[in-house]
């Protein structure tokens, strides 16, 4: 349903959409039902000629059910949502599957610098390819990303991946994604980072194997010193 409005371009995009849908439908159903009852009771028990208002203490068993049953329902659906959320959180945020490649994402006011590993597929070597506001990745490959900030708090967000991760100055934050479709998609900052926050946009270009290899080959000679960072082994979990 959500994919009708925004493509799902990563392996975990569908899981996150399903979670959002589960929460929306569950909460939405009970919200509408509560509103229906609320306004229904207002209408039913409105002031009427010849009818005197009465005080209900709420001590009878059948009266208490109006409180206890919604209470149990809330607990049940809360647990349901939490279980579903933890499952997705574990998969997306707590696990790092083995990577085919690693890219470094450096945020600053108000631009994104991407460090690609180059033909040797290793970061911090002489053939690293650095680009501004343009991330090149290959479809169906698992990528690790290393997030760094040069100045203030930012947030790396790729809506089609359903990926959003805060970037904190002084820290290298790791994560992963696996693109599942080719194309060019938006990257945005989702943490207010100054006057240019709203225009801190970039693009992720997902290419097939041949196009990506051609891009790497064409851009590898533009060698420059890579931004210093710790070498991080791929695989494992945090």
């Amino acid at each position, binding site marked *: 349903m959500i994919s009708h409005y925004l493509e799902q371009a990563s392996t975990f995009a569908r899981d996150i959409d399903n979670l959002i849908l589960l929460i929306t439908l569950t909460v939405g159903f009970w919200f509408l039902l509560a509103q229906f009852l609320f306004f229904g009771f207002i209408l039913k028990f409105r002031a009427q000629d010849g009818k005197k208002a009465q005080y209900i203490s709420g001590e009878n068993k059948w009266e208490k059910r109006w409180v206890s049953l919604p209470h149990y329902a809330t607990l049940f659906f809360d647990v349901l949502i939490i279980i579903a959320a933890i499952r997705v959180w574990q998969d997306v945020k707590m696990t790092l599957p083995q990577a085919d490649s690693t890219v470094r994402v450096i945020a600053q006011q108000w631009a994104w610098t991407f460090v690609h590993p180059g033909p040797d597929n290793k970061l911090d070597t002489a053939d690293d390819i650095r680009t501004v506001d343009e991330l090149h990745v290959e479809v169906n490959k698992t990528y690790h990303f290393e997030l760094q900030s040069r100045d203030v708090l930012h947030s790396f967000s790729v809506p089609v991946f359903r990926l959003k991760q805060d970037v904190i100055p002084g820290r290298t934050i790791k994560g992963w994604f696996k693109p599942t479709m080719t194309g060019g998609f938006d990257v945005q900052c989702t943490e207010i980072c100054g006057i240019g926050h709203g225009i*801190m946009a970039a693009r992720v270009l997902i290419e097939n194997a041949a196009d990506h290899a051609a891009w790497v080959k064409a851009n590898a000679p533009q060698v420059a010193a890579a931004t210093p960072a710790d070498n991080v082994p791929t695989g494992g979990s945090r």
Partner: protein
Amino acid sequence: MHQTTTRRLLALLGAAVTAGLFGGCIKPDGAAPPLSGKELFASCSSCHGVGGEGNPTLAAPSIAGLPAWYVESQLVKFRTGIRGAHPDDLEGLRMRPMSRQMKDEAEVKRVSEYVASLPAPKAVKTLADGDATAGASAYATCLACHGPAGLGNEALKAPPIAGQSDWYLLAQLKKFKDGVRGTNPKDVTGAQMRPMAMTLADEKAMKNVVAHIATFSR
């Protein structure tokens, strides 16, 4: 008679509500008056200051009083990625999206003219260890384009450097020398400036020439 008046009032009310609801949704398609240079400058003033006096803390140079042709050319460079798109150009990368807030060439021109109309502030000395006398000989390289008094030369696309903040001049000389600025294949004037900056052996030589430029008055 009474019913007709009521209907007319209701129709009028309906029209007013409809206009109120949908009036804001209609794109003016150029009908709105264009923003003035001063209005456009509002987005620049957060870094460059209300009077364009610059802010060293934000590495935003003084731009007030710079010629419109130069401001316009730099804005175009930032907008098109000719300047400010190098991964190591932190300040340029900040300026790049801001330059793109101007919708079109006409807005770029208007804001450039406004910047040019601002009174140039007096530069405050921030670098202490430059030797102006030693820098005078090194300035001979700069003289051909920027002029003996650093007033620039529009025909050669060389901006005035007299009165510019010393910290900014030093930063730009370093950027040119390190290839952070002036290496884009489309940056013709930057490519001319880069070898000139490379004639300065080290930071000391750069500070000397900057100290010499600081003796010029704008």
